[in-house]
């Protein structure tokens, strides 16, 4: 924009300068001519005046035929008037007297003067009457008048300066006046090049009326454009059909399926997500009955009520599509548009929600089971003690031991359940204390020796001779350990072995290796997801909440560590529980 403006302005300047220069040359020529003519006229007038002054003396000398007097009078006049040329010529061209004394060729004036045939230049030559009809010609040349020409030059210089000043003034004014025009012109070319933002093209108010008028035009154009846009959207929305672009593109981007059906429940529109949910292509679905896509007879019947607007309210159905693991649970909400407008259907994939619901229900059921079992034991053994107050000491102590063990089990289950709800609520916190590792492992060993024996599993603890006291949340650490070791015993077939090896230097590393069923590579990371249970038919019969490993990992991560697994299917798994011993603990806020 700027170079263009600059070139425009400089072009105007060059042209103006050229015009002024030409005008000055022309003016100079005219002035020069006037000056020359004026000088000539002045010298003519001077010559005439001198001639009038000297004429009586010269004519008297001619009449007297006194040649020396004539020459003296001529010389006096020439000297007085600083003449450059002065001579007297007779009719036969003989020179009687001249400023140059050598040029005179007559020694004496003739008695009768010869007739004069030509006078020559009338302005500088004058006739002298020499008496008795005789005549002579006086020629005078006066030097040019200089004072008058200097005045002319000063006047001319002044005129030139005035002209330049005027030109400067005019061009500055012109530039000032042309600035907004230049701006408007560049704005127009921006619009032509596709500039859509009209506000960017507005001129500053300092540019005056042109800017105000231009800005007014822009505002008018903007409001016109806005109206045009609104009208076109309105037209599209009311007319629908193929010309519609913006709204379907937005609906297409939705992650929920959207379908519009007519009164006969034929699909009139469906977005990309809907096509995926209904396992078809958009072109293939258009025009086909929506009911063909629903397998569940009950859902079909409910949805069928939409036909012919027999139902006015919202209908919500849930239906399964696909088979097995690829299956999905879809929730279809439908509502009639009214007055023959068919209906609109929203399809949501609620598979994850249903899986989570199922898992949560399973957890509640499992937790109930887990609580009832130790409770049953407590009740049975307490009942036995109450019924037989006189039982022998060993029986009594055996019963009390079992009761004690089962109460501990209850405690643990309740702790687990609380931790689970804390994790669910995102508020699991650590209660940090000194934890004596030897005592902790002794407790764990005591807890698992019975279940391991029951399954004939060799449970071995490989502990270093000296275990330190660490800083951790004892209950949560036990929770993580019992979940991992409990899993190892649970998923190891009878006669197998489970080895717990502990290392404690910079970090506490507890490896729990089993000779169990192993974990498929696909499941290895997902087993740490809440409610996830491996899809192994051998696992299905084993009770579990699908929460133990999620809990263990959560707890260890709060301690700044982690739980990881390495596994070979059918050979066994090794779970590694790690936590740093020197790094500061991350305490949950």
């Amino acid at each position, binding site marked *: 924009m700027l170079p263009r403006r600059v070139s425009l302005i400089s072009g105007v300047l060059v042209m103006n300068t050229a015009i002024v220069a030409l005008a000055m040359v022309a003016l100079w020529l005219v002035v020069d001519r006037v000056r020359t003519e004026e000088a000539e006229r002045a010298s003519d007038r001077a010559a005439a005046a001198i001639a009038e002054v000297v004429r009586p003396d010269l004519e008297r000398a001619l009449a007297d035929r006194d040649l020396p007097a004539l020459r003296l009078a001529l010389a006096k006049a020439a000297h007085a008037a600083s003449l450059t040329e002065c001579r007297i010529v007779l009719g036969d061209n003989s020179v009687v007297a001249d400023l140059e004394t050598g040029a005179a060729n007559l020694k004496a004036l003739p008695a009768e003067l010869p007739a004069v045939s030509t006078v020559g230049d009338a302005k500088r030559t004058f006739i002298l009457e020499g008496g008795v009809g005789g005549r002579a010609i006086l020629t005078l040349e006066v030097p040019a008048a200089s004072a008058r020409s200097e005045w002319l030059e000063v006047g001319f210089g002044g005129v030139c300066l005035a002209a330049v000043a005027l030109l400067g003034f005019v061009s500055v004014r012109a530039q000032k006046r042309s600035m907004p025009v230049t701006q408007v012109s560049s704005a127009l070319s921006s619009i032509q090049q596709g500039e859509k933002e009209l506000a960017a093209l507005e001129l500053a108010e300092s540019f005056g009326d042109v800017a105000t008028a231009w800005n007014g035009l822009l505002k008018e154009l903007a409001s016109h454009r806005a109206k045009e846009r609104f009208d076109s959207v309105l037209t599209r929305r009311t007319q629908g059909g193929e010309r519609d672009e913006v709204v379907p593109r937005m609906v297409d981007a939705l992650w929920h399926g959207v379908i519009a059906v007519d009164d006969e429940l034929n699909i009139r529109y469906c977005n990309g997500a809907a096509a995926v949910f209904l396992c078809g292509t958009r072109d293939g679905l258009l025009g086909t009955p929506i009911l063909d896509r629903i397998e569940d007879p009950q859902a079909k019947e409910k949805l069928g009520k939409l036909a012919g607007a027999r139902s006015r309210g919202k209908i919500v159905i849930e239906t399964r599509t696909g088979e097995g693991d690829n299956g999905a649970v879809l929730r279809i909400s439908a509502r009639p548009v009214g007055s023959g407008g068919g209906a609109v259907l929203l399809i949501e994939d609620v598979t994850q929600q249903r899986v989570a619901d199922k898992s949560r229900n399973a957890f509640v*059921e499992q937790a*109930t*089971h887990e609580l*009832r*079992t130790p*409770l*049953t*034991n*407590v*009740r*049975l*053994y307490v*009942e*036995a003690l109450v*019924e037989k107050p006189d039982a022998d000491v060993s029986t009594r102590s055996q019963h009390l031991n*079992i009761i004690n063990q*089962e109460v501990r089990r209850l405690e643990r289950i309740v702790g687990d359940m609380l931790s689970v709800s804390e994790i669910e609520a995102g508020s699991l916190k650590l209660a940090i204390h000194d934890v004596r590792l030897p005592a902790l492992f002794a407790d764990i060993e005591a807890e698992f020796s019975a279940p391991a024996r*029951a399954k004939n599993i060799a449970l071995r603890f490989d502990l270093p001779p000296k275990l330190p006291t660490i800083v951790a949340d004892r209950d949560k650490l036990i929770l993580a350990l019992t979940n991992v070791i409990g899993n190892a015993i649970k998923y190891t077939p009878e006669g197998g072995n489970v080895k717990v090896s502990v290392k404690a230097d910079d970090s506490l590393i507890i490896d729990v290796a089993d000779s169990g069923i192993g974990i498929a590579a696909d499941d290895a990371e997902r087993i740490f997801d809440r409610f996830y249970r491996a899809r192994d038919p051998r696992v299905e*019969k*084993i*009770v579990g909440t699908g929460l133990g490993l999620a809990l263990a990992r959560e707890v260890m991560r709060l301690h700044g560590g982690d739980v990881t697994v390495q596994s070979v299917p059918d050979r066994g798994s090794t779970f590694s529980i790690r936590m740093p011993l020197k790094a500061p603990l991350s305490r949950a806020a």
Partner: protein
Amino acid sequence: MSTKTLLIVDDEACITFMLASRFRDLGYEVITANNGEEALAALRELKVPLTALITDFQMPRMDGLQLARTLRADPATSQVPVVMLTARGHRLSPRELQETGIQHVMPKPFSARELQAMIQEVCGPAREAA
């Protein structure tokens, strides 16, 4: 006089131990198993007819329902009454009850004395005239 034989199946060793000692004290012959599969194996070893089955519902490998069905399907044991112990709030449908021959469902936690009364009601006292 013939001895009545009870089969008690539960994956909880404490429960089978307590119930077995109680019913033995009452004069019943008791065999125990940890799960359905073990129970069937024990039955194959059993030389005398089984009087009643007390089984937990949820067990690894073979659950109580499947065990009851298997017994029902075998003519030798099809008339054996079954008492189901369950820790779940599980309600069996009438059809399931008929299919499996389950006469009573005992929700955990239960009282051993109640179970004892139930067994005595189902199959009479431990010893009686043949």
